[in-house]
């Protein structure tokens, strides 16, 4: 067993500038993620200025890849799209976009309309911003534009570009702060396959502390949550790098400070540590904090206690590997090692975090309460990931459904926890927080429960 952290990444490219050729990438393009980001805001309407097929490719490849999540109000077939073809490529697509926006206003009832352009307008140079400005001057609808040419980057770029467009084009210049209000960022809808449940569990816990939590995505208040963004006392980011540009922009524009968490906490220890660090910055009484921790911990450890009969019998102290984005890979590794006593063998981080945050990630993984420290590898290539997993002596694999078949062939206990997860349906399921910890234990035990 390797007791040291391998701090040498497999490749050291910056996600901002380079995209190495990959086999089986586990993210979508900037456009795909932007569509998901807009759809995750209730009654927000994406208007695709993109080639025919971009929307559907992302429905099948991205939203279905996130636990077969359905189309919602205006996803899938209902998403307005210019369906650009050769005609627009040659002659430009600006008049087509104008027509599409106006038609969308006429037939789709929404609270916010977001024009998202794909690769074609990005390549031929359609002046999308000018079209949007022109239409806006004639109609009284909230309409913005995010340049999400697919080639601009991956899911994380699309998420950030959409939010930056909202901050720049929709939100007012000034806002009055509301004490105790926090926004949640860094949880990318669909790329984080449990996004809805994760956000709701974070909201549940922080609300219990007396805070007002603005999760934006998956909240039925839709546009109101977006408009509330500038009022926050703090922004909380659940990734060491995804969403950073957004909170920096909000700090610059509204002077809103932010707190960064390397991962979404799972179970008693990390969730308690998380709320304690939030309380250091926000006004929550010591009594409330103690009460929340006690109540939540009591329920959670009661569940652990009840599960332990089965766990000791079925799989005591197994070596495991985790493959996923920083936010899930860290959470699961720490939970399995710290709370369930499993042996952390290998962590493969698949979101290509910038070099400057990797040390922090590695420290969080070195900090596990186990005599065994996991090997940490940054890798996005599915073939390379298989090779790495194959080399490890493990019994449990938490990964994406890309790894499922060979995990089962090898006789591993396997569970999809990261994108893509085509092998499960995810609605409000979460492995985040106290309740997520319980939920994760249930799903883990179900992998080898009877009938005997």
């Amino acid at each position, binding site marked *: 067993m390797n007791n040291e952290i391998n701090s040498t990444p497999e490749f050291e490219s910056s996600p901002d500038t380079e995209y190495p050729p990959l086999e089986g990438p586990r993210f979508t393009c900037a456009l795909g993620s932007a569509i998901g980001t807009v759809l995750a805001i209730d009654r927000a309407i994406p208007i695709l200025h993109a080639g025919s097929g971009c929307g559907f490719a992302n429905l099948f490849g991205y939203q279905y890849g996130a636990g077969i999540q359905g189309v919602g109000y205006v996803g899938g077939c209902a998403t307005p799209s210019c369906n650009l073809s050769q005609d627009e490529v*040659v002659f*430009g697509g600006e008049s087509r976009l104008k027509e599409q926006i106006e038609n969308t206003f006429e037939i789709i009832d929404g609270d916010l309309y977001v024009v998202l352009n794909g690769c074609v307008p990005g390549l031929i140079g359609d002046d999308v911003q000018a079209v949007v400005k022109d239409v806006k001057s004639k109609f009284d609808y909230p309409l913005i534009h995010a340049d999400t040419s697919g080639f601009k980057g991956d899911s994380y770029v699309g998420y950030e570009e959409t939010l930056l467009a909202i901050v720049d084009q929709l939100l007012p210049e000034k806002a009055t702060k509301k004490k105790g209000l926090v926004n949640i960022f860094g949880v990318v809808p669909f790329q984080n396959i449990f996004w809805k449940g994760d956000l709701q569990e974070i909201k549940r816990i922080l609300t219990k502390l007396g805070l007002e939590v603005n999760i934006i995505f998956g909240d039925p208040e839709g546009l109101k949550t977006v408009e509330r963004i500038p009022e926050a006392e703090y922004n909380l980011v659940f990734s060491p790098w995804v969403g950073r540009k957004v909170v920096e922009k909000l700090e610059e524009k509204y002077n809103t400070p932010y707190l960064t968490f390397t991962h979404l906490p799972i179970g008693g220890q990390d969730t308690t540590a998380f709320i304690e660090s939030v309380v250091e910055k926000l006004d929550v009484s010591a009594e409330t904090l103690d009460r929340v921790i006690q109540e939540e911990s009591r329920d959670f450890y009661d569940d652990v206690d009840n599960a332990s009969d089965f766990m000791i019998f079925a799989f005591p102290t197994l070596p495991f590997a985790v493959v996923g984005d920083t936010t899930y890979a860290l959470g699961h590794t720490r939970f399995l090692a710290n709370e369930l006593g499993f042996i952390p063998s290998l962590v493969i981080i698949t979101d290509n975090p910038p070099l400057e945050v990797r040390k922090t990630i590695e420290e969080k993984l070195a900090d596990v309460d186990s005599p065994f420290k996991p090997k940490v590898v940054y890798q996005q290539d599915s073939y390379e990931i298989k090779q790495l997993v194959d080399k490890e002596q493990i019994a449990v694999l938490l990964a994406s459904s890309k790894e499922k078949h060979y995990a089962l062939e090898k006789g591993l206990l396997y569970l999809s926890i990261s994108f893509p997860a085509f092998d499960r349906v995810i609605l409000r399921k979460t492995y985040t927080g106290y309740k997520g910890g319980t939920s994760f234990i249930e799903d883990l035990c179900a992998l080898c429960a009877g009938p005997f």
Partner: protein
Amino acid sequence: MKKRKEIAIYGKGGIGKSTTTSNISAALSDEGYTVMQIGCDPKSDSTNTLTNGKSIPTVLETLRNGRNVGLEDMIHEGFNGILCVEAGGPEPGVGCAGRGIITAVEFLKQKFVFEEYSPDVVLYDVLGDVVCGGFAMPIREGVASQVYTVSSADFMALYAANNLFKGIKKYSNNGGALFSGIIANSINLPIQKRILEDFSLQTKSTIAEFVPRSLTVTRSELGGKTTIESDPDSEQAGVYRKLAKHIIKNDNEYVPSPLEGDELKIWAESWSDKLLEQKETEHDLECVVPGAE
């Protein structure tokens, strides 16, 4: 069945490639060849002097306007029965002109235009900066087989020619068109001739013809005609006839050696020094009025 000669003529915008191409077409048609000229430039005026100065509907415009379009809607007979085609393209500043050329040329091939009309010679008149893949379409496999470039002795024209050489070199490995010569245009001064001769030496290319700048051409064009049509007995018409004869017979096809990196700039600077020296010793730089015969 006689082999069809398919030639692409490239040149920087405004260098005289459409004038030259149309005069070659006119001269070849006078010799009895069936000629098709395809303008591959979104401004769609390649064949104007073959159609009495009138613009013809372009392939892309015709395709855009109706589904049931016939070839006769986009192939128009001009002077001496020359088959005139304009690829067309978007308005300046929008869309993708390169994709437009690809679309138009692919459409003509799909519709077996060349088989249907069986021209002896097809001349593609292409905007020559080769700024993207679309403008390189005519030199890819299965379109033109020979390429000429129209160039003056100006640096930017030679720069464009050098870029074309790079394109030819790239596609030559995949069955693309090969180079057959530089058509040196607007050459009135000995120094201009020497610059072009040196450029062809440096790039291991050949010169098809030296064409002087001429008021006859300007006069003819203003009248919406080629020099061959409007002033067939002029000296300039003779130059175009000689060039056309050379082109129809020339089977020399090769890959030129483009100057890479800073080589072109260094080469140009060496000529700049020579020009400065010459200015002090000779008068021929200033005694010839551009456009004078």
